């Protein structure tokens, strides 16, 4: 499998860059600090979730875009070899996402383990937070690749768009929903809001975590609606389904664009 060859190389290259180890260390220190200050209960996990929901999309998407730009000559070199574009795409994608996921998961799991959370009753929730982080990494690297390919010649635009998208999804989105609720408060809003929250993978991940922890006070508007509408298990399953869609659609587009692109 040629994908594996590329993956193996990317892997080596990334770890030689060392910053990926720093990325894991940040999660290690952060998780450790959160547990020390917040106790080993669900509180620490919720704080970790909040940090993860903010950082993982940013780092994954920006690095996804930059990575494509940086690999430009490499892509050209490889495409002049007997190699199909699909293998190359998956090699690049896997070569970036696997190390990023690993450094997050290992970085966060070490303190979670050493403080005994992974063996406590919260183990399931902890694994879910790790798993959602991995899913968000995959989603946002996919989005980053798609943006990088769409603005292959115009790096500033590609990077700019990824930052704007992150800002919107991670920061402005809640405000946007509250604004809608404020303006249209007299109408039945449950279903439209439900639909809107499907459009944001970060929000979906947050809803899943909050449904799992059953902390409705922290759920925000969309989480509360979700909870009321679906109940926690069905709600979680629906949210998971949409997370998978968020993963599949950008990657499917990305492969298509990559297959047709001029290099």
């Amino acid at each position, binding site marked *: 499998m040629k994908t594996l060859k590329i993956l193996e190389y990317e892997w080596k*290259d990334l770890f030689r860059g060392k910053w990926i180890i720093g990325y894991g260390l940040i999660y290690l220190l952060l998780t450790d600090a959160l547990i020390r200050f917040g106790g080993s209960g669900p509180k620490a996990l919720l704080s970790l979730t909040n940090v993860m929901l903010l950082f993982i999309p940013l780092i994954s998407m920006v690095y996804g875009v930059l990575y494509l730009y940086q690999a430009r000559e490499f892509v050209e070199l*490889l*495409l002049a070899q*007997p190699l199909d574009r699909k293998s190359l795409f998956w090699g690049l994608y896997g070569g970036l996402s696997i190390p990023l996921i690993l450094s997050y998961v290992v970085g966060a799991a070490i303190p979670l383990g050493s403080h005994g959370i992974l063996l406590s009753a919260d183990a399931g929730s902890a694994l879910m937070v790790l798993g959602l982080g991995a899913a968000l990494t995959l989603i946002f690297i996919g989005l980053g690749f798609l943006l990088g390919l769409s603005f292959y010649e115009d790096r500033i635009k590609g990077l700019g768009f990824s930052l704007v998208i992150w800002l919107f999804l991670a920061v402005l989105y809640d405000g946007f929903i509250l604004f809608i609720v404020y303006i249209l408060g007299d109408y039945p809003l449950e279903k439209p809001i439900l639909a809107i929250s499907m459009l944001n993978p970060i929000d979906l991940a947050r809803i899943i975590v909050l449904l799992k922890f059953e902390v409705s006070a922290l759920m925000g508007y969309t989480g509360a609606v979700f909870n009321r509408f679906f109940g926690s298990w069905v709600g979680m399953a629906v949210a998971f389904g949409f997370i998978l869609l968020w993963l599949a659609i950008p990657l499917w587009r990305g492969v298509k664009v990559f297959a047709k*692109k001029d290099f």
Partner: protein
Amino acid sequence: MIKIEDLQKSFGKKGVLNGINLDIPRGQATGIVGPNGSGKTTMIKTVLGLVKPDSGRIEVNGVKLNGNYAYRHQIGYMPQVARYPENMTVNELLEFIKSVRGTEAIFEEKLVDHFGLDSELEKPLRVLSGGNRQKVGATLAMMFNPEILILDEPTAGLDPRASTTFKELVHEEKKNGKTVLLTSHIMSEIEELTDHLIFILDGKVRYNGPMQELISKSAGRKLESAVASMMEGAGV
């Protein structure tokens, strides 16, 4: 053998290739000349499958190109600007391309030796000089003993010694019956290495014939002035 029929490609509104027709027989050494931006590199990239043409048909050794890739086993390509993954050492790059290609690199040692790359093998590519990178590019293009060599301005960054070595190697390949496609702005190099000339202007083939014929037509002048007068005649 490379066969191109009515190849069209535009980037946005700008037509880069406007109906290229070419038939390059096996074993022919062809020089491709033309002013900057005439479409030489784009044409080469369509043959490699790096650029997807808007319309037209390309055949390499009887295989029609349609997004397939196995035909590239027969091609060695040396790009105009050789830039490689920065953290990789030369050795790792060679090994990596070998593993991607999955064939034996029978000329590897010979090429490394000829170009004097031995001392560079363990260095990361980012510290290599431009000329040494070109040598790595030449090694990558030739080490698999491909039937077709596509060289895009190969000697641009090479010092005289490396350039001489390189030309000797190309000469040898030519003698062994390889098909060579070479673009260059250095006419003496074209004259030295190839015996067939293609002149491209505005994405169209304006001249395609034996070099000797062109030189004799222009009354014994050098190739350089013959090509220059072609460019002038076309109003460039």
